[in-house]
């Protein structure tokens, strides 16, 4: 489904990504972890063309992301993305947030988009909040709306960039639960997160990044059992013992 082949990216002289290669198969859940500044966000944003890259190739569902002829707008409409800071549209009610791209991008009839929005809100446990505005919701609720908003586009894959890092601890699980359900339903997912419990429970594979390189790319059990690289071991020991 998603194939990265030797992806490299520079900001001026600064090499952010170096020869990153990996794949995410249909219905697979891949967790990306690594220290701050290692290039996780940048990597995940290259997948839907939010970040341009200079070297290598990325294909999503057979479409070449780096090809200048590719209609990125159309591709992005088919890939859901969830951000650390939710990025709901503050001037729209919750239901409008979920409706707007369905209507303006997918050209769905309004009534259909509305029904779909309400159904998705139910699904993420926010059926009662449809008419509220983002600022009237808790962080956990906002993030669940953001997930519903992405799902409304019937995405072929979902990208998550630290979806729980901006949340108070007591709200993290409500979001992870929604993501776990999504994974169980067979959604293809690429998730940047430091929630190693989630990775253990849900991920099929774990990618560990350091200084712009994919240092480790292993089955979940293997990754948590015996990571091959010292760096990954150090990272895990730090993150698991506090």
């Amino acid at each position, binding site marked *: 489904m998603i194939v990265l082949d030797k992806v490299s990216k520079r900001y001026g002289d600064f090499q952010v990504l170096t020869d990153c290669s990996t794949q995410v198969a249909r219905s697979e859940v891949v967790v990306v972890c690594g220290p701050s500044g290692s290039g996780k966000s940048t990597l995940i944003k290259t997948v839907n063309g939010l970040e341009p890259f200079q070297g290598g190739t990325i294909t999503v569902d057979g479409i070449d992301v780096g090809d200048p002829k590719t209609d990125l707008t159309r591709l*992005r409409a088919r890939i859901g993305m969830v*951000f650390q800071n939710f*990025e709901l549209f503050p001037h729209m009610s919750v239901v409008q947030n979920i409706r707007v791209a369905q209507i303006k*991008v997918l050209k769905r009839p309004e009534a259909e988009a509305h029904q779909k929005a309400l159904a998705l809100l139910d699904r993420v446990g926010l059926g009662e909040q449809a008419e*509220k*505005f983002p600022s009237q919701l808790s962080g956990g609720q906002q993030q669940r709306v953001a997930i519903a908003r992405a799902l409304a586009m019937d995405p072929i894959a979902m990208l998550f960039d630290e979806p729980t890092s901006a949340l108070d601890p007591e709200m993290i699980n409500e979001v992870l639960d929604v993501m776990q359900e999504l994974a169980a339903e067979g959604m293809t997912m690429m998730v940047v997160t430091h929630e190693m419990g989630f990775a253990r429970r849900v991920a099929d594979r774990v990618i560990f990044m350091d200084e712009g390189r994919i240092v480790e790319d292993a089955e979940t059990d293997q990754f948590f059992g015996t990571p091959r690289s010292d760096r990954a071991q150090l990272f895990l020991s730090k993150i698991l013992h506090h």
Partner: protein
Amino acid sequence: MNYNWDWSILVSEPYMGWLLQGFGWTIAVSSAAWLIAFTLGSTLGIMRTTESRLLRWIGTGYVELFRNVPLLVQFFLWFFVFPEILPDDASRWVKREMPLPAFTTAVVALGLYTASRVCEQVRSGIEAIGPGQRAAGKAMGFSEPQIYRYVLLPVGYRIIIPPLTSEFLTVFKNSSLALTIGVIELTAATRQIEEYTFQGFEAFTAATVIYSVITFAVMGAMRVVERRTRVPGTVALGAK
């Protein structure tokens, strides 16, 4: 001081008529100029925040040019110099046939100048939103125009309602410069009354009151706009 106050001149003809006509021209120059300033300024402000280097460059160039030349100089350039540098036909049309030459020139000069200020407000409003919203819009599959239409502008304009209000009020004050090229707007009418009646204090008091009324009316209207567009659950989007 030996001044004979006579407030009755303000309600006697032809002076009352002059005042009203002056008021009318002030409103006409200001609103027409604002129409230009708001549309052109918004376009330029948007251009300065796009991903296209060329568009950004055009926007920046415009602002640097129009904001740094004193407005009075711009009035004179448009009125006296501009018609001379046009090709013959256009030059003749501007000088002989263009309807209401002084008024039209004032509207254009004031509109183009104010556009550079509106541009900067719109740009700052959009920039205040932060890159995450643009990324979210993109990730939803919005095209760049759609990102502006549905994501950035509705929030950006809400943020800049207060500074835009004050730009709008400045247009009324700056419209008095139109008298230098012969538009008998409110300030010019007031001076005319003074010259004819020597009752300058009354006339300028009247003008001051009228300008103040305009200010209060605009501020009142903008407060209504602000209330109507306020997003439920927020004090002001600008505070985010």
